[in-house]
């Protein structure tokens, strides 16, 4: 009963007991102590800057759009905390060609003025270019094995991130973002994105009713989301938060992915379906607008004032081979 006919699965029946029994010692969470004196325009209660979009979810999590926040205020509170922000990105097979551009653009726009650790997961460490980084920023190549199909590679990301947090990054970073590598930063991505659990709205579905969200609709899948439910369609290319929360969340997703495997089914959009299922029952504490996860093939609508992070045009057939 293979759910998708064409895709072949590697049998994997047991979850990784080694990881799941680990008790991690995280570094103490750094909380904002003080907002230093700063002069800025007074916020006006009756004059919201963005009236065209939803800026708060029904569970009172902010939805981050240009105009909703003041970078100066946020930087003044976050910079003194000496945070280290981690970034994971997977460059498997031909995807290593995206690393250079990704890193160069991240150096220009991602968390400027903060310590950043880039963790590039790859099956081909020699092909990773040497990119010049700003002081306080470093990159680490994480060798992993390559799976035969692109779907498998995609879904194994949860497990790999989880394992890596347990083995390494939980002691090295405060916040962790898991990003797709075939993307480029075009504008600032700063501390407005920091939160306990952070998800981003998929650019293809921010303007459509939830009945049209490509959730997994087969009830036999662990990623099943029934009709009439669902908040947003979150993109699998961007998620993050406190490293502790990302650990919990990637573990939960990996478990549901394994459950589906054991039942011979693969969710409609691989780990993105599982991510959406998880975020429905464990709502993110902060949501990023599609400015933070854009698709260059789409025309820019008026609601998107700024594109910060977007896909690189590519030939999917060629690259996934």
């Amino acid at each position, binding site marked *: 009963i293979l759910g998708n006919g064409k895709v072949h699965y590697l049998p994997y029946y047991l979850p990784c007991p080694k990881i799941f029994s680990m008790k991690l010692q995280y570094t103490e969470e750094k909380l904002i102590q*003080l*907002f*230093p*004196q*700063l*002069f*800025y325009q*007074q*916020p*006006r*209660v*009756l*004059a*919201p800057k963005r*009236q065209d979009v939803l*800026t*708060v979810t*029904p*569970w*009172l*999590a*902010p939805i*981050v759009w240009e105009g*909703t*926040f*003041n970078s100066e*205020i*946020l930087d003044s*509170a976050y910079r003194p905390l000496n945070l280290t922000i981690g970034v994971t990105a997977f460059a498997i097979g031909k995807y290593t060609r995206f690393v250079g551009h990704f890193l160069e653009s991240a150096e220009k726009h991602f968390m400027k003025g903060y310590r950043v650790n880039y963790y590039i997961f790859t099956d081909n460490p020699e092909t990773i270019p040497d990119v010049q980084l700003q002081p306080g920023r470093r990159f680490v190549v994480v060798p992993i094995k390559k799976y035969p199909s692109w779907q498998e590679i995609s879904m194994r990301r949860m497990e790999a991130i989880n394992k890596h947090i347990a083995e390494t990054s939980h002691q090295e970073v405060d916040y962790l973002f898991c990003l797709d590598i075939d993307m480029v930063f075009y504008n600032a991505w700063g501390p*407005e994105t920091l939160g306990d659990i952070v998800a981003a709205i998929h650019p293809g579905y921010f303007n459509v009713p939830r009945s049209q969200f490509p959730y997994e609709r087969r009830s036999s899948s662990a990623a099943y989301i029934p009709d009439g439910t669902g908040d947003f369609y979150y993109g699998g290319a961007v998620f993050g938060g406190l490293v502790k929360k990302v650990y919990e969340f990637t573990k939960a997703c990996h478990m549901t992915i394994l459950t589906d495997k054991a039942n011979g089914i693969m969710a409609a959009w691989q780990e993105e379906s599982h991510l959406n299922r998880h975020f429905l029952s464990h*709502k993110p504490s*902060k949501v990023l607008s599609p400015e933070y996860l854009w698709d260059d093939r789409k025309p820019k609508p008026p609601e998107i004032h700024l594109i910060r992070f977007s896909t690189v045009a590519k030939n999917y057939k060629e690259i996934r081979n």
Partner: protein
Amino acid sequence: RRDVLVLTPWLAPIVWEGTFNRDILNAQYKQKNLVTGVVTFALKTYWFFIEGFMSSANKYFLAGHQVNFYLFTDNPEHISHLQMAPENQLFVIPVWNHSQWQDISISHMGIISRYIRSQFQYEVDYLYSIDINVQLFEHIGVEIIDTLVGTISSWQYTTRRERKSYETRTESQAAIPKGEGDFYYTAGFYGGSVAEVYKLTRACFKGVMKDRENGIEARWHDESHLNRYLLYHKPTRLLSPEYYWDEEL
């Protein structure tokens, strides 16, 4: 809600009717098994408000969740038998009588911080200080629960910062320099995690005592100190003026 600001420039949500779904929030709150405390003062003639406040708060404040009410009063005899909901508890704490009204309001912060340290921190996760001369007419639920919460005053939410009631004399610890200030918060409803409320009340009380030493009294007493504190320790969540509406308006 498109007509009002629902997010501060530091991304703290401002809670207005229509911005939240209480069912979702209730489900999240219930999972965490939390206890919330309410602290209120009924000193001198304010004993008159006890009945109205307690019966409405018992019915409308975090209905269905465990709430500890801490009532500070110099008139404990005036507490008629108040029926509390099964999840709620009332603790009556007798306090000394003060001669001046100012004196009464000033020591609130001191009393609260002292009691948090000796008692409340062991009994509640979140703590809110609410003026006793209010009556709740609508449900106030878990949408108010966050780390540090201030309420925008219904008197001043449209005024420009230069004309807000901030203390401006630099000799006072509560002074807010010209050109600064986000909102004018009311001392009638504020709170948060017990740790944060401790820091807030302690800082304000220290400011009050320092001012006293220097022979100065802040323009709006506790409230002036609260506003200064919340400028430099910005709330993680704000309540709109809907949450503390002064009937006189």
